[in-house]
């Protein structure tokens, strides 16, 4: 295949991958601390995409500005979900947590379907199709912004976790829940904060996605397995792992799409996911379980 086709596919894959990484960051953070798989992650992304869509439609607010409203709002949503629904309903049992987050996913997706029907919506902003020429390729501006945003959020999370008191408490709870509780950390609060941070990541991802993407009630499902693949690939709970995993998954999807056609492009991701789980369940950068 000629380089002039291959190279843009690679660049596009990496740029897409950055957004996968951002969605996966939220998932891996929640897994790393709460040790739960949040099945509602994808539908929370759908909800955030709808929120960004209506902010633009009703208030005329640019998605890149809406991010400053939606991020704190979704932090609160995530905090409340963990504190008042997932935590109390699951009695600390893994199987129950799985079922409760699945129940939440079903509720959110179908409430959106009920309210907005199955229509697919897009927003129209001036820069949706803007491109910049780089090294002979035309690179989409919103995707470049998405890439920058993902990297910025990763750095911010890293700073939060390693240099603030809250971050220290989160890491303490992740390592040794009982010990953290004994030294006066409010574990239920820290769990909820972590879940809130994970949900906030999704809100940022939604605002960066919406200029070039569409929204309908099922859109999050496409991202659920991609995000899980990314997280498993990078190692459950590992932040650099999620970043690298995201870029890699984006690349695989783009190249599979190029060689196998659009609809089979996703198969590459799922097969990779199954293979990694079967043969290397700790991921590429994950800690030994």
């Amino acid at each position: 295949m000629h380089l002039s086709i291959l190279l843009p596919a690679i660049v596009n894959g990496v740029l897409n991958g950055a957004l996968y990484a951002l969605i996966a960051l939220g998932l891996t953070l929640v897994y790393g601390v709460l040790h739960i798989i949040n099945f509602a992650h994808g539908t929370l992304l759908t909800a955030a995409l709808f929120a960004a869509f209506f902010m633009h439609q009703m208030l005329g607010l640019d998605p890149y500005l809406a991010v400053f409203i939606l991020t704190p709002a979704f932090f609160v949503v995530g905090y409340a979900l963990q504190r008042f629904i997932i935590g109390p309903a699951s009695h600390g049992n893994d199987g129950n947590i799985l079922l409760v987050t699945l129940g939440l996913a079903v509720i959110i997706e179908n409430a959106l379907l009920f309210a907005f029907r199955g229509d697919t919506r897009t927003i129209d902003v001036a820069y949706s199709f803007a491109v910049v020429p780089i090294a002979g390729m035309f690179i989409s501006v919103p995707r470049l912004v998405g890439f920058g945003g993902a990297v910025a959020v990763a750095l911010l999370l890293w700073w939060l976790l390693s240099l603030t008191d809250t971050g220290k408490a989160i890491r303490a709870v992740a390592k040794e829940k009982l010990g953290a509780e004994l030294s006066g950390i409010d574990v239920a609060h820290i769990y909820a904060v972590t879940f809130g941070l994970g949900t906030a990541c999704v809100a940022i991802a939604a605002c960066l996605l919406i200029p070039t993407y569409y929204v309908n009630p099922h859109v999050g499902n496409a991202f659920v397995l991609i995000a899980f693949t990314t997280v498993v690939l990078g190692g459950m709970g590992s932040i650099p792992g999620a970043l690298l995993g995201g870029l890699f998954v984006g690349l695989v999807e783009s190249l599979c799409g190029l060689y196998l056609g659009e609809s089979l492009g996703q198969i590459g991701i799922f097969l990779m996911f199954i293979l990694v789980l079967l043969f290397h369940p700790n991921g590429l950068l994950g800690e030994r379980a």
Partner: protein
Amino acid sequence: MKRHAFVPIVAAVAALACIPLIVHSNVVLNFLVTTLLLTLAGQGWNVLGGYGGQYSFGHAAFFGTGAYATAILQLRYGLNAWPAFAAGIAAGAGVGAVIGALTFPSGLRGSYFALVTLAFAEVLRIVASVAPVTGAGTGLLIKLDLGAHALQFQSRAGFYWLILALVTGALVITRLIEQSRFGAWLVAVRENEDAARALGVDPTRVKLGAIIISAAMAAAAGCFYAQYFLFVDASIAYGPWISVEALLAPIIGGAGTVFGPLLGALMIKTLGEAAKLVTGDVPGLDLVLYGAVLILVVGLAPRGVAGIGARFRARLAPQKPREAA
């Protein structure tokens, strides 16, 4: 073996079998057929998830394989519906064996098992939506050929008795498992896999046996779906809806009990119909209710509706002290 253990099954089935003799409304019979269809798929999930503790989020993989195999064998190879139905069940069990053989030996359990089953179902859905043999995007239409020889019935009652017979089979098999050594191993693996292994149980083989039986039941539901609606496409056969509903029925009714899936299926289908009455045919609300009931049941009655009954009976007989759940 305790013979009286089968009395409740016989009684329930006998009562259900009489319904079409009294009620002739197609709406009611259709409701009961879809409820029993869900019971069958749910019983499949229950064998693996309820008794074995392996939560699958991808039972669509088995349901869809059964549905497609029945349809394809009849359409493309001209096979009679009866052997096609049996082959569909076998094909579903085969997919179960493959998924089990791939996942259980590498020690995937809990959330990881749930994720990997979900991924398998998605892969099959995507393949079915592009492969020519499955009719790709347009799906498959089974030819109308009324008569028992083609497993198609003029009246809803015929279909009703067929699905009731299948459900009866699933109830009996589940009861037999419950009373057998295999069932005891399965529960031991659910409660503590390492302890079970230490006592000489081979968890991989036990789980493999469970997933094959489980898949066969879900596939039977898929085969029936194809015969009843005479249409299959990728989002019906391998769609997430059946994975979710097959799990909801036993969890809500009581996972790890023989009648849990039947109770749960009755409850969620009734709830779904009630939602439709209130809102008309706007999609979404029934599933919102299912999700809410799921969270409520997990939060308030972790052992399902059957568990509430058991707790109530225990309270009526206070001389036997029970440990707190």
